């Protein structure tokens, strides 16, 4: 790196960490592929038998085995696998009969819609809560954050989903039940973006929009609760760190109003840190939706994954794992990169 700096001047000193960062991201993706590859290899199901059936004569079996490339060295097989995945070929699902990539593209928007609603709830409530809690330490809002943080750690999401269904659906009839929309309207809204709330608005179908909204609000709020607990806690600790700095004391001595001190002096510098936290939380929600989707029969990627698990549909399982992992890593590393680019302190 030092040599590069001498050769290309200051630009390279700035670029070198970035290049290293990109290398690490690529390595992480390769690692993910290696893990799914290994998982695919240790499955006790013989992939050849799955194709030729268990009554096939030995010669047919051997021919199929050769044709599938299972005789090649593992490294060759691995790189063939990587090549397939890069080209979007994730194999065919045994249970749906369609290519896994196609299935995943179809179910992904449902997950995205729910997780996005969750993160919107988490950010719009969590950030102000965290700021206020830090400004008024020991106040009731501070106590609430402590309780929420604990609850976020200790309560299983799938259980909270079931309890929510009992209370708000079965008892009070306030929200729609499992599924994305009233079954009578299922498939009636023309698909544009795959996000049902958006699609129904585009189609101008307010009845469908209301139905979709009543179905998404409970799982979305539950996901939102988990991200809120995390975001509020992190915002609070970032703010406390800033409020303890000397420049805040200076601002106070100068007589700046408390509102200005908190929102302009203390909150501004933590915005970049918050991006990372929100990114992590968003990625976590995409993962957390696996459980929630199962509870709410939400036709997203999580439901697809668990259904495939129960059917031992290995291509589908690995494809879904790969996609969730890739999205998770991308958001994760993306927010990290953003942090490095935006925060001058991280550049050193």
């Amino acid at each position, binding site marked *: 790196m030092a040599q590069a700096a001498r050769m290309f001047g200051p630009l390279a000193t700035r670029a070198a960490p970035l290049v290293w960062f990109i290398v*690490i991201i690529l*390595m*992480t993706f390769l*690692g*993910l592929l290696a*893990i*799914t590859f290994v*998982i*695919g290899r*240790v*499955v*006790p199901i013989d992939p050849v038998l799955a194709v030729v059936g268990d009554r096939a004569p030995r010669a047919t079996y051997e021919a199929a085995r050769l044709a599938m490339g299972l005789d090649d060295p593992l490294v060759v097989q691995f790189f063939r696998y990587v090549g397939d995945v890069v080209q979007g070929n994730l194999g065919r699902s045994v249970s749906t009969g369609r290519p896994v990539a196609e299935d995943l593209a179809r179910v992904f928007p449902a997950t995205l819609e729910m997780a996005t609603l969750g993160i919107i709830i988490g950010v719009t409530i969590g950030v102000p809560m965290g700021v206020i809690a830090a400004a008024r330490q020991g106040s009731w809002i501070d106590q609430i954050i402590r309780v929420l943080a*604990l609850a976020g*750690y*200790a*309560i*299983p*999401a*799938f*259980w909270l989903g*079931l*309890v929510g*269904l*009992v209370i708000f*659906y*079965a008892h009070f009839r306030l929200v729609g039940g499992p599924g994305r929309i009233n079954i009578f309207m299922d498939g009636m809204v023309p698909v544009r973006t795959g996000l049902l709330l958006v699609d129904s608005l585009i189609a101008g179908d307010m009845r469908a929009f209301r139905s979709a909204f009543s179905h998404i609000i409970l799982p979305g709020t539950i996901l939102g609760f988990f991200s809120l607990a995390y975001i509020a*806690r*992190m915002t609070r*600790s970032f703010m406390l*760190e800033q409020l303890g700095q000397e420049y805040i004391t200076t601002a106070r001595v100068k007589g700046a109003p408390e509102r200005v001190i908190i929102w302009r002096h203390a909150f501004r510098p933590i915005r970049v840190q918050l991006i990372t936290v929100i990114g992590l939380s968003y*990625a*976590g929600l*995409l*993962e*957390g939706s*696996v*459980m929630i989707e*199962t*509870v709410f029969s939400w036709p997203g990627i999580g439901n697809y*994954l*668990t259904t495939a*698990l*129960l059917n*031992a549909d*290995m291509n589908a*399982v*690995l494809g879904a*794992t790969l996609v*969730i*992992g890739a999205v*998770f*890593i991308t958001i*994760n*590393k993306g927010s990290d990169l953003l942090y490095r680019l935006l925060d001058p302190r991280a550049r050193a």
Partner: protein
Amino acid sequence: MSMAIFSRDWLLSEDPETRAQARLGQFYRLMRALMRNPLAMVGLAIIVALLVVAAFAPWIAPYSPLQGSLQNRLQPPSSAHWMGTDELGRDILSRVIHGSRITLYIVLLVAVISAPLGLIVGAVSGYFGGWVDKVLMGFTDIFLSMPRLIMALAFVAALGPGIENAVIAIAITAWPVYARIARAETLTFRTAEFISAVQMQGASHARVIWRHVIPLCLSSTIVRVTLDMAGIILTAAGLGFLGLGAQPPLPEWGAMISRGRAFILDQWWVATMPGFAIVIVSLGFCLFGDGLRDVLDPKGKVKV
């Protein structure tokens, strides 16, 4: 002298005469600091209760966890069945009580597998530095950036459902955090004089790491393991809920919730009761872990 043993002054002595005295004194200070934190004591009480309930489950449980009578199926909570009965007429309270054994088994096994693994990887990485560090930490970071729950799901899918496989899958996803912590801790003292002193006395690398590096990484790892217990319990319950963990008729809490799903709208207690057990036990580990961190690892308070 013998009279003075275990007295406060003996325990808090600034210059202990034996190693045992120093250790006991340290333990006494730790317990005193913990006692001042009421929430940590609540957590400890919950953990102790879990241990007692698990140890004496057959004597505490009022009914058999596996046998029920079908005339009694899906009874609401009553004085005879505090948590009601499930679809096979089994007493849910008895099943929850026996389920504590499974939870404890999973949690302990995951801790016993993943903590030492992470500890060794982290200590070796930090102690040697250089390319060993780069390779090991690169490996750790790759595992660290994976979504844990999804990875556990995929591993169980490959290994097949069951408690042992669930434990392996969770342990595989849990160790990188401990490796990171142990490495960070090791870096703070790898160039310290006491390490050089041992090296110059001719101790092998293995001995230095085993006897001098790892013991110093223990406290922060223990704190982190305690804090992680809640997450491990939730993941295990999640795997059980999806039918990938403990198999019926074992009274695993997550699997019980899953069975209760079918009756959730009319017989709410079947699915919700085991959930309370999960919440309480997870809460216990969270509270105790928080208290332990404040005492053992005050500087680690900000990073979570």
